[in-house]
Each structure stands twice: as structure tokens, then as C-alpha cells.
């Protein structure tokens, strides 16, 4: 069983996902994980699929998608077993909002990286002058979350943005 990472990027129109997944199903590939969004109106999809089809066959099957030059498709084999090992620790949701300026993401996530924190999901948005970042973060066991919060708050003050770090508690129903 081989894993392939496939990205489809470019001009949005109805039917891109249907065409892509249809071709993959035709090759007997199974979707293991996928995400799709619009970035400033541009279609952006990433997925991992598993199956026996070689990369060249996947590329050939998806070639019609990029024929008109408005979509870019890439197919890369990824080694199995490279999924990040689940770290034991604590899960958090980080929110940053404020006036847009360069360097907010790098400054904020730098504070997390400094303590071995891992961002597992992140979205940023811009509406008018309001910049918003929401991220899900794992902190390794033993990290002083209050100290991380203080460091993030200091970075926020420096950048002129509000920063909140809250425990991502799950309610089991």
C-alpha cells in the first residue's frame, strides 16, 4: 500500500472535488485524509490517498484538471508511518486578533515552537483591517502553560494584538 499526497490549487469553480475524487476512485485509491478551503477565493485542496496505483498513473488521471491552466495539481508519494507521533501533553486553542501587520503569525507561533509546542490546525483570516488567527496547539507534558500564556501575551502586546490561550476541553456526551 502506497500513500500519495495530492494538492489541487487555483481558480475555483463547481465540480473540482467531484472530478478529482472521481478519478482517484477510478484508480482504486482510498481517501485517508483531506482538507479543502477557499483562500482569498482560490480553491485549495490537499489530500492523502492510499492504494496501489503508481504516482505516474495518478498524475495522468488528474491531468485533465489542469488542462486549461487555471488549476495546478501535484502528486507526491509520502512515506508511510510519517504521521506525527501523538505527543502526550495538553491541547489548547489559541486566538489572536488585531490590526493587520506583517509578522504576526511568525512571532506568535515562534513562542509555541520555543517550548516544543506543535500547531495541529491553523486558520488565519483577514476582513478589512481585522486580522484573525485561530490555531489548535499541543503543548508537551511538563510545559508550564501559564508561562507560555505570559510569553504569548507579551508578544501580543508588542504586536498590538489580543492573544488568548484556552484549554481545548472535550465534552464527552
Amino acid at each position, binding site marked *: 500500500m502506497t500513500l500519495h499526497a495530492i494538492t489541487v490549487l487555483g481558480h475555483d469553480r463547481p465540480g473540482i472535488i467531484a472530478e478529482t475524487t472521481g478519478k482517484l476512485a477510478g484508480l482504486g485509491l482510498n481517501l485517508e485524509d483531506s482538507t479543502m478551503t477557499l483562500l482569498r477565493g482560490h480553491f485549495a485542496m490537499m489530500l492523502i490517498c492510499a492504494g496501489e496505483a503508481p504516482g505516474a498513473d495518478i498524475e495522468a488521471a488528474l491531468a485533465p484538471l489542469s488542462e486549461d491552466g487555471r488549476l495546478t495539481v501535484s502528486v507526491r508519494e509520502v512515506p508511510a508511518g510519517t504521521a506525527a507521533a501523538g505527543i502526550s501533553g495538553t491541547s489548547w*486553542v489559541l486566538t489572536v486578533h488585531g*490590526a493587520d501587520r506583517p509578522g504576526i503569525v511568525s512571532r506568535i507561533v515562534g513562542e509555541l515552537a520555543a517550548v516544543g509546542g506543535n500547531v495541529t490546525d491553523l486558520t488565519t*483570516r483577514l*476582513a478589512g483591517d481585522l486580522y484573525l488567527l*485561530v*490555531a489548535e496547539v499541543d503543548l508537551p507534558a511538563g510545559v508550564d502553560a501559564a508561562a507560555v500564556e505570559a510569553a504569548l501575551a507579551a508578544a501580543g502586546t508588542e504586536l498590538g494584538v*489580543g492573544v*488568548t490561550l484556552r484549554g*481545548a476541553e472535550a465534552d464527552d456526551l
Partner: protein
Amino acid sequence: MSLHERLASWSEDELGVTGRVLDVVRAPAPVLSTVGADVDPTAQDVVQLAADLVATMRVSPGCVGLAAPQVGVSARVFCVDVSAHPKTQRHHGTFVLCNATVVEASRNEKSREGCMSVPDFTGDVKRATRLVVHGALPGTGESVTVEANAFEARALQHEIDHCAGLLFLDRAAGAHAIYARKTYL
């Protein structure tokens, strides 16, 4: 859970001043991320602010609550009126609270929220559906402890957050819990 009769019968007429409609500020205005100051609920400027908040809420379509930071005043005062909202169960009509704090909160539920100060986004936020809040009435300064549920509880937590310099964005349930408001042209 019982309705607080005094609060339910309160109306802005008690304030004895005419409310002015103020401009609502939008994020990223720093006042929205600033912890509001405690107020003297009997002070004349606080009474006027209370009337202004109610007047501004009244002219804003769909508005169920407004906090002082949203009109540019960094103070712990807000108004609420969820009486016309479909998600409302019990409610106390229109009221204003000063220096309000959450005493008890339980039974969290996730629901989609918006805010006049964040017009471009909505977000999924987990809030208590059973709430006890303590605060003071503007004008008389009477101390009240109110039980609220469902949508009124959500509105109270949203406004109390504003007074603490927090937006619903700060309580996003996850990285994909904030949504752009759809505008179909």
C-alpha cells in the same frame, strides 16, 4: 430557576434620561480588547451611558445586547434584551447591569454567535446554558443576582466578556470554528 421580578419589571424609563444613539466601534479597535473599569452605578455619567446603550441597541436590527466597550467606553456596563429572539426561553426583557460577574455557570452548549463589533465573522462558541450573574442596576445601584438560561444566558456571557476585553473570537471552539459572514451580491 426563577425569574427575577425586579429585573423583569425594570425599564430604561427608570433612568430618567434620554438615551442617545452612539456609533458602534468595530474590531480591531483597542477598546474592545481592554479590560473595562469598574463603575459607580449611581454616577450620572453611568446612568447616561446605560440609557445610551439601550437606545443604541434599540435602533440596531437583531441586536440583543450591547456593552460599553462597543460604544468606545472602557467600562463594565452592558444592556441585554433577548425578548424578541427565537432561541430565547425565559427572559427578563430589557435591563442594564453594572460590574456584572458570573457566579455560577453550567451545562455548556456550542452555538453560532455574531457581534456588531465583528460584522464580518460568526463563530461557534461553547457557553453555559444555566447561569447565575451578580451585578448592580444603574441609577439606584441595587444589587441583583439573576438566574438566566438558554439564549439569555449566552447573551449575558457575551456581554460580560466584552466588559473584560474579550470577543467571541477569543472563545472560538477550534481552528475551523470561525466563519466568514456570507454576503451574496
